[in-house]
């Protein structure tokens, strides 16, 4: 029982991180219909942004306080939002009217460019760097259990962000424009929507969420390095497909599902070496029976 609850919290925390990343993939796909492979590198840059801002910023707050951690998180989100918008502006916007394959290959190029530039010794270097302890290690012990406090923080912050995102997409003018653009870009333009601004905003939003995920991921990892985004990026991509690419609740659900699967499979000694395999097997299995993903709708093309 204790084992189960601990794995559950742990899995929810990991799943929250995947969910935050998956939302970025799925939002960009929803609007531009391509997979932004550089998204996993934005998450890495989020962790590095926090690595560099943390020492001066946390200095302004009581040591390892929530306020200090929040300030670092916010700054890193803002930095990544700008990076995400820059990537869109410089790499993808000039290719807007080109075949989607061109953009997809460009995305892979951007990803490799960021990864290998950052590995250069004059940039970040390839070796593992210790991530600053933003919050103290703390464990709760309700009813004889041992629960990692930072996992709870991750889950709670993610829940708040998901609620905020839902509000933004469903209730605000920008959210309405995003939904309209994702359905029909030309028709949205005919309503007076500045398409470029909506796309830019979407990249900024997705990248900010990725930055938060990157910081959370770094808090749980041994350290940070320029290739650290690849694995969570891949898992989050699977999560987005699993939930139904283009579907926001689907991405969140897929992320949580994958986090739980990975944690529980990893927690069983006989399965722990196969956890990546198990995650992919589940993806293949679900896509065999529901190609549009868990919450995805079957696309009906109308002429």
């Amino acid at each position, binding site marked *: 029982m204790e084992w189960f609850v601990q794995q559950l919290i742990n899995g929810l925390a990991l799943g929250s991180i995947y969910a935050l990343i998956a939302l970025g993939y799925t939002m960009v796909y929803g609007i531009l219909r391509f997979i932004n492979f550089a998204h996993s590198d934005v998450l890495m840059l989020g962790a590095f942004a926090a690595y560099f801002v943390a020492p001066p910023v946390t200095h302004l707050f009581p040591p390892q306080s929530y306020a200090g951690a929040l300030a670092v998180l916010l700054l890193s989100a803002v930095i990544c939002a700008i990076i995400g918008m820059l990537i869109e502006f410089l790499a993808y916007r000039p290719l807007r009217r080109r075949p989607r394959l061109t953009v997809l290959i460009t995305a892979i190029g951007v990803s490799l460019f960021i990864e290998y530039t950052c590995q250069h010794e004059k940039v970040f270097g390839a070796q593992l760097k210790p991530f600053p302890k933003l919050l103290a290690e703390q464990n709760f012990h309700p009813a004889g259990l041992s629960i990692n406090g930072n996992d709870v923080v991750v889950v709670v912050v993610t829940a708040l962000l998901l609620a905020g995102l839902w509000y933004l997409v469903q209730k605000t003018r920008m959210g309405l424009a995003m939904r*309209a653009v994702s359905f029909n870009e030309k*028709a949205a333009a005919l309503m007076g929507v500045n398409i470029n601004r909506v796309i830019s905003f979407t990249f900024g939003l997705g990248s900010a969420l990725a930055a938060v995920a990157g910081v959370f991921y770094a808090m749980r990892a041994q350290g940070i390095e320029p290739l650290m985004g690849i694995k969570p990026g891949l898992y989050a991509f699977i999560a987005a497909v699993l939930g139904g690419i283009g579907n926001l609740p689907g991405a969140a659900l897929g992320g949580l599902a994958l986090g739980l699967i990975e944690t529980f499979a990893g927690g069983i000694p006989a399965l722990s070496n196969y956890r990546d395999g198990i995650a992919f097997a589940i993806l293949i299995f679900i896509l065999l029976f529901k190609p549009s993903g868990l919450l995805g709708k079957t696309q009906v093309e109308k002429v």
Partner: protein
Amino acid sequence: MMLEIKNLNVSYGAIGALHGISLQVEQGAIVTLIGANGAGKSTTLRAISGLARAKGQILYQGKDITNLPPHKIVAAGLSHVPEGRMVFANLTVMENLQMGAYLQRDKSVIRTTEEFIFSVFPRLAERRKQLSGTLSGGEQQMLAIGRALMGQPKFLMLDEPSLGIAPLLVKTIFEKIVEINKTQGITILLVEQNANLALEVASYGYVLETGQIILEDKSDALRANPKVKAAYLGGM
């Protein structure tokens, strides 16, 4: 002159769609553009609303609006109801209308326009909470027109409003188009394959054939023209 097009050329890749057309629309008028499928009618509207890149000149109230991005054209007061209606099927009727009012900031103006649209198309009021993808073709056309009106246009472009709609509804929709023109003073440029219907409501018409204007005249004269009769009015 409300809208003036001079020597407009549009091509899609290597294929020319419009070869130097010129036309004029007077303030408060309903002017129609008729012609067969593929003649370039929709392309003309797409060029005006900024969806297609064009060479030549498009003047709106004397100002050059050629190749402005679509959102600036809308802001200038021109609305385009595209072919195939293009309602946002993933949004409700109400949300579609909100999208139409995207550039409108004045809440009371938005409310008055909404009321006007619901009075013209009561069917939309009944279905305001429904996803617009579940509406019938005719209702979607009403929504597309209503959505365009939400933007307070002074100049409305309608692309094939009769396409794929039950004949009974087509009559209603054309009556509404005239009503909108009369009561709101909105100038209308109407593209139609159904030339009979279009020439009935319009005061002036242009006949487009393979990207060129081959005829233009008052609607009555066009309806009496033997060439138009033979080619576009079913020989009546």
